[in-house]
């Protein structure tokens, strides 16, 4: 028996560590910079980029029949040497706007020359994906300021940081300043619509609101032009600094320094600078907004959405679950009905999560949300629903329902584990039922209740299927809980991004699926880490509570 149980544990551990190791190895390696290689083919074509994958394949006869003379002899010799197999490499060639491809396969027999050019730059930019090229010149105001690779690189480094700083300033103006002005205008517009709905289009109230709208409109125009001027000035300043690159095929490309997120000569880096690039890529991944249909940039909105949703869900599910369990265990008299309820709760845990999603969509979003919209957001919802569609709050509620059985069962178990002698002792001292529960039973059961909450959080944070119906979306960069200057501060009605859904999206729906694949592992690693952190936080809370309650008891 020892062997059987021990063996089962070993198998379980092996599977879990295997999975974690796979995710860790694949996920952690994604951001490590790789060298840039240039392949010159016998056909004269040139490919330059990072090698992402190597595989051996058995070439088809028809492949060689296209070759002629020496090329064919060489290929056949290579084939014989490899024992019927030939290696080929998947090269990330980037430069999508010039080539129309992100990746290209290069087979060994085609390659005439393979080298690592010292000045090949990897450039990660805001649009169009990566760029691979060698620095040719640096332009300031259209004049060539440097034309040797070293000088261009030095100048670029000098101007890159200030350019990016100006770019960030511009983003700030665009997002926060314009956002504030827009929100004001929108509020006035909605007030006008509401007045028209409440009192009729011809009413004096509507006329007053229209007058107010005019005033706001006028002020807003002034502010807009001020902000626009500031943005234009920044843009013009940024347009002054350009780097000229030549691709492996000899094409020239001008890039503004401000458009470049990160550039480095990959073949010249030592381990420390590689680690620097690695860290900087992780930082971007954790803190930035996604770019290029989520295939680049960061996942900060998804992290935010996941964490906020899990926390709201816990706040909703724990009180409900604990109260329900208290009634079932402490107040209800045993009987057929209580047993039936208990069985029903246990069965609820076995309902497929997508069913909860459907219920959430029908009941919360359409019925409750639709009603809220009709009653409170008549004017705003004319151009689209406010609460009557998937959103953070509805998603949290749906997941709270989903995890309710976990909390109820765990709490019931914890309550049952409190010895009856303690309750009786409390009654003997003259305490009422509620006093006994509050002072004696709950503190004792608290660690067990917290365990239920931890389980519920882990279950909820990793759930994706129901979220797809009730509010998780591909792109929602505006954070649902962003505390900005615009009331009402928290927008729990908004759709949100979720890491689990992000993984699904990257894995199954990304256009550039080859580049997205490593990101899937990295995002998975991040999701696991976040769930672990949330759990650790709950465990820490449980320890604190346990100490507090135990100390207070005596």
């Amino acid at each position, binding site marked *: 028996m020892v062997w059987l149980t021990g063996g089962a544990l070993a198998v379980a551990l092996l599977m879990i560590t295997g999975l974690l190791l796979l995710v860790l190895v694949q996920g952690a390696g994604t951001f490590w910079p790789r060298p840039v290689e240039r392949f010159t083919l016998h056909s004269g074509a040139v490919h330059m980029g990072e090698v992402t994958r190597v595989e051996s394949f058995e070439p088809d006869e028809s492949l060689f029949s296209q070759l002629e003379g020496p090329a064919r002899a060489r290929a056949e010799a290579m084939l014989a040497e490899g024992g019927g197999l030939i290696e080929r490499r*998947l090269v990330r060639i980037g430069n*999508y706007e010039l080539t129309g491809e992100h990746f290209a396969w290069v087979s060994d027999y085609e390659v005439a020359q393979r080298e690592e050019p010292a000045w090949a730059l990897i450039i990660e930019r805001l649009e169009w994906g990566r760029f691979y090229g060698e620095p040719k010149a640096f332009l300031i105001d259209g004049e060539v300021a440097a034309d040797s690779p070293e000088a261009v690189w030095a100048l670029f480094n000098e101007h890159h940081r200030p350019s990016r700083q100006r770019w960030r300033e511009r983003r700030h103006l665009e997002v926060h300043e314009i956002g504030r002005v827009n*929100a004001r205008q929108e509020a006035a517009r909605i007030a006008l619509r509401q007045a028209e709905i409440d009192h009729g289009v011809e009413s004096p109230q509507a006329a007053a609101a229209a007058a107010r709208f005019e005033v706001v409109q006028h002020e807003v125009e002034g502010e807009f032009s001020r902000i626009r001027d500031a943005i234009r000035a920044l843009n013009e300043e940024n347009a002054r600094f350009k780097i000229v690159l030549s691709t492996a095929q000899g094409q020239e490309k001008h890039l503004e320094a401000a458009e470049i997120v990160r550039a480095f000569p990959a073949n010249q880096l030592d381990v420390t600078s590689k680690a620097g690039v690695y860290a900087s890529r992780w930082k971007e991944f954790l803190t930035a907004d996604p770019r290029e249909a989520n295939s680049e940039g960061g996942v900060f909105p998804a992290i935010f959405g996941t964490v906020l949703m899990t926390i709201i869900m816990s706040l909703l599910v724990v009180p409900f679950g604990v109260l329900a369990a208290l009634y079932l265990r402490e107040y209800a008299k045993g009987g057929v009905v209580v047993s039936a309820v208990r069985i029903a709760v246990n069965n609820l845990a076995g309902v497929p999560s997508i069913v909860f999603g459907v219920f959430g969509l029908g009941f919360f*979003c359409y019925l409750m949300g639709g009603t809220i919209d009709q009653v409170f957001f008549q004017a705003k919802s004319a151009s*689209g*629903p406010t609460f*009557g569609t998937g959103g953070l709050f509805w998603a949290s509620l749906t997941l709270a329902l989903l995890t309710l059985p976990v909390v109820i069962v765990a709490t019931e178990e914890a309550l049952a584990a409190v010895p009856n002698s303690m309750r009786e002792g409390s009654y003997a001292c003259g305490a009422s039922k509620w006093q006994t529960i509050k002072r004696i039973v709950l503190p004792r059961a608290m660690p067990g209740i917290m365990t239920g909450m931890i389980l519920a959080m882990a279950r909820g944070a990793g759930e994706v299927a129901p979220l797809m119906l009730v509010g998780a979306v591909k792109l*929602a960069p505006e954070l649902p809980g962003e505390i900005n200057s615009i009331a009402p501060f928290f927008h729990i009605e908004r759709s949100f991004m979720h890491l689990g859904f992000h993984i699904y999206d990257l894995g*199954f729906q990304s256009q550039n699926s080859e580049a997205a694949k490593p990101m899937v592992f990295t995002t998975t690693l991040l999701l696991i880490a976040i769930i672990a952190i949330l759990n650790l936080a709950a465990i820490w809370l449980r320890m604190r509570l346990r100490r507090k309650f135990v100390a207070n008891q005596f």
Partner: protein
Amino acid sequence: MLRAKLNRMIGVLVAASALAAPSVFGQVKVDPALPEYKPVKGVSGTIKSVGSDTLNNLMTLWAEGFLKMYPNVQIEIEGKGSTTAPPALIQGTSNFGPMSREMKAQEIDEFEKKYGYKPTALPTSIDMLAVYVHKDNPIPGMTLQQVDAVFSKTRRGGYAEDVTRWGQLGMTGAWANQPISLYGRNSASGTYGYFKENALFKGDYKDAVKEQPGSSSVVQGVASDRYAIGYSGIGYKTADVRAVPLAADSGSEFVEAAPENAYTGAYPLARFLYVYVNHKPGTAIDPLRREFVRYIFSKQGQLDVLKDGYYPVPAAIAAETLEKLGIR
């Protein structure tokens, strides 16, 4: 109907390509006659798009481009399949419904029942539905009848026999005896519907087709399975797969899935990608949607189309579409 539209486009495009200095991208160009998008004042609110998975990334790119002009607009994009677009538009839970096929009569009826007018279809870009095989597969091309015989159990295309092995498509050597492994989309997808209608001649799919939740997963499935075949939008092509040249029937030549063949209408599975909106004819459309549609049909918006691997519409179609919404 689509063919007619595409044919009409050819003329437009030939005229357009005669103009000078287009924005070059690989081989394809954005029509230089398209207007540059300039932001206007007073645009705010939420863009909520529910619909096609084929258009999912494209909607996201448009949204990102639009966000750059109007940072305070909120954007929410969901792409679970074209079939999800009409209910969301009817319910009012979305204001844009991207679809990779035209709405069916029944869907239009339901919409009309609720609103009293038809939804407006905006042809935003051109896609070629490609039949993908593994990159090592040397097959020179397939006729639509062969495609039908591979994917369909009803063979409405009229091919003589059921095709289950690569040898039946004329391949020799190690390939001849290998069974064909089929990949396709799930039934919520517009790609599924379009392929059924045009490549299977409205027949039924074989049960052996492995249905995938996204266009990209079809391509990944084919990429990892040497003897596989699957269908998906041209925008999802990777280096690991090859798009098979197709012929409309055994008498015609194989046509490469290349952009020039999409525009001439020679490629048999070229289609428009639509965005549907709820617009009462004759009324003014609200500023948010008006500007987003204008962005889609601007130079920047059509450059996003190229970025996603699809093909832009010519300026004439763009202008005609804007006219439908009363935008000029």
